[in-house]
């Protein structure tokens, strides 16, 4: 009958100091590097240090590479930031892929049909607006059904991705002139609807747009009445109703915003990076961004760090693969180990493990 304490117990630990949290992160990153080193050495017999330096090279060795790293970080960040308002409301928007594709498709369509008809600056502004609207429509549908009929938003947004993919496939065929199942570079000579180079740099506008949107979302969620309504609704619908919040309205409004932001990510990709449209435009970033948003605990400013980390790992993986003639999967395993350890460190910032003999009672 005596209730014996189990040998190992997990106890909630909510008030770790900031310093402790940082320390835990650092310990886990070191741990990840050690595990990866063991893996590298056992599988490839390579010196782990040279592999790590090669990873670093992948992201930073030349100014162009640095710019590409920055550019990709911004793109991933913009999707993660787009997901944030919905996630704050505990509305699990898994449809960033679709919202981004539809936004990108709208941009591409306008480049194709309006490219030589209106000035490029005006075209860019219109593309910005209509990509946002297209993404917002993709966000509106699941939100409307959630608000009215309480449908499951995770499945609904996920399914909307496939609708988006099929629509893009359809238009790729419509616009494909060479029967190559690809649209090719749009406006390759006129550059209509392309982001202009600023100070000789191609990607300044990408960075600028994303930085402004990130700051705006941060301020919106933290300092505005709308942001407050989102937070209260996400915490408890009963509390929201108690305080007089119109819950369906907040759900729809917030998803319009979330969809629009993801649509803008599609605009940035098409107008600022690839200048084409295909089902690869989103490239799984809509899902990777979910990881970023979660790791950053839905804080848009912290998302900058995690977007960068994930892009850095990807670039590194590609570089190791080519430098050491490994297949890319081996290097992705290293990236996986790192991410896994960061996730594990999250556990230790919120909980602690207690052994039986430590118990005083």
């Amino acid at each position: 009958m005596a209730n014996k304490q189990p040998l190992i117990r997990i106890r909630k630990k909510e008030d770790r100091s900031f310093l402790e949290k940082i320390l835990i992160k650092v310990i886990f990153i070191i741990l990840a590097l050690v595990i990866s080193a063991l893996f590298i050495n056992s599988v490839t017999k390579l010196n782990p240090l040279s592999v790590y330096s090669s990873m670093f090279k992948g992201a930073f060795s030349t100014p162009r590479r640095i710019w590409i790293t920055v550019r990709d970080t911004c793109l991933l960040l913009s999707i993660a930031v787009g997901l944030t308002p919905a996630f704050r409301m505990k509305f699990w928007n898994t449809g960033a892929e679709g919202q981004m594709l539809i936004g990108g498709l709208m941009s591409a369509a306008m480049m194709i049909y309006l490219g030589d008809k209106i000035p490029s600056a005006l075209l860019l502004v219109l593309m910005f607006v209509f990509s946002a609207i297209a993404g917002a429509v993709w966000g509106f549908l699941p939100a409307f059904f959630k608000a009215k009929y309480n449908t499951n938003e995770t499945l609904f947004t996920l399914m909307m991705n496939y609708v988006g993919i099929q629509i893009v496939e359809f238009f790729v065929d419509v616009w494909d002139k060479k029967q190559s199942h690809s649209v090719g570079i749009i406006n390759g000579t006129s550059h209509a609807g392309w982001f202009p180079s600023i100070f000789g740099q191609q990607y300044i506008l990408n960075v600028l747009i994303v930085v402004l949107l990130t700051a705006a979302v941060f301020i919106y969620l933290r300092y505005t009445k709308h942001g407050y309504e989102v937070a209260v609704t996400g915490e408890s619908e009963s509390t929201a109703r108690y305080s007089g919040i119109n819950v369906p309205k907040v759900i729809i409004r917030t998803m319009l915003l979330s969809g629009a932001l993801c649509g803008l990510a599609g605009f940035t990709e098409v107008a600022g990076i690839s200048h084409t449209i295909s089902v690869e435009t989103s490239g799984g970033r809509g899902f990777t961004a979910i990881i970023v948003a979660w790791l950053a605990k839905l804080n848009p400013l912290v998302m900058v760090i995690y977007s960068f980390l994930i892009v850095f790992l990807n670039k590194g993986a590609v570089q190791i693969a080519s430098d050491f003639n490994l297949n890319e999967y081996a290097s992705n395993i290293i990236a996986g180990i790192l991410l896994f350890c960061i996730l594990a460190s999250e556990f230790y910032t919120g909980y602690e493990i207690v052994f039986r003999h430590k118990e005083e009672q």
Partner: protein
Amino acid sequence: MDNNCAIQLKNITKSFGAVKANDNVSFDVRKHEILALLGENGSGKTTVMNMLAGIYYPDEGEIFVDGKQVSIKDPKDAFDLGIGMIHQHYKLIDVFTALENIVLGLDPKENNDLVTARNRVNDICSRYGFEIDLDMKVYDMNVSQKQTLEIIKVLYRGADILILDEPTAVLTPQETEKLFNILRNMRNDGKSVVIITHKLNEVLEISDRVTILRKGQYIGTVNTSETNEKELTEMMVGEKITLDINRDFIEEKHKRLEVKNLTVINSENKKVVDNVTFDLYSGEILGIAGISGSGQKELLEAIMGLQKCEEGSSVVYYSTAHGVHELVGLSTREIISFGLHLAFVPEDRLGMGLVGNMGMTDNVMLKRYRKGAGPFLHHAQPLRMATKIREELEVDTPSLDYPVRRLSGGNVQKVLVGREINNKPTVLMTAYAVRGLDINTSYAIYNLLNEQKKRGVAVVYVGEDLDVLLALSDRILVLCNGKVNGLLDGRSANKEEVGLLMTNLKGGE
């Protein structure tokens, strides 16, 4: 040992943290009988039965089944001993049929294939008088059918001792009558039935003996034929305890709320608030008494615009500054934004009244965040209010940004009550304002309510402790099954009177 006993409980004690849910409880369940287990909310009825069903394990004490000492470690042990419990929340698979639910989890090799099972179930049904469509899916069933299915499931598994936890709470009178007939058939067949309840009329109608628990302790067992409502009520509610709570009489009274024919029907199509009519005056505390689930929660929520009221319902609000308003049909937001000073302390503090992950300042802002121009929040005033509430009510928190869900229960309630009082209400409605709080905090809350009453606020106090209700309230409204079952003067009413009105709907209504 009396071999007529199916179960004997000896000195059972069970604690949850510092709370003793059962303290040294001993009683018997006989064969061939229906035993009613009677007690108020929180008296430990369900806890003691859960120990028989293998849900909990007692800290101390012994259990005998058929005279042999047993140790019931999990629900399977209970089944093996022939004990089956029907919980308040049914444990059925919605997408399966009745028959599939019955055989679920049993070994198909032991005569449990669907054909044999169907015959066996039909035998059980005809023997005790159940009516059930075995091919009906659970999601198509109403509550009564689900309950029938739960009982058959338990019988199919060979239970000789059936425990039913508040079985009539969700049933209509006709369904209750049907259930009682079945229970009588089971008793006549030699089975033991324990029914957990707090409804006196049902106890008298169905049971052979009554065992009464109060605040975790065993009070006594009486033969139903030798007792009456008055005796049972006395045993259930206990002696009057004198509490040292102030009660001033305020001469000047103005009508604040006029509730007329208020009716609320819930999602299960049950009238949870049934034609309720009463007036509320400034400078009084109106206590609302009732067994939990008698419509108290829905009544207050309906007044606040959080429940849909049926046709004919009316709540007229007489404001000091804003004239007379009909509240039915207004949204909560309109009620708040009209500057109508209705304050509401809901039962579910962190789930409805507060946002757990936010600090005091953000919580103080909850009903007034719309104030101030522009799209941005204005923190200055809520910050001042939060500081004031923290000082005046001595809220123990590390900082005004510290998530309120991490505060102790008493401090959480101080934040909530503090905010509602801070909005200078003319009507203050509270639901179970002291539930789970220690004595000191409880008294702090009583004092706050009395202060508000002196200020001329009309206070509604929904409570469960009758001693407190009797000491605090100027008038007591008693709800029973969603209906007003009596309105008493708080100074002259006695405990038995209130207890009877709570448990026994006046005839003819």
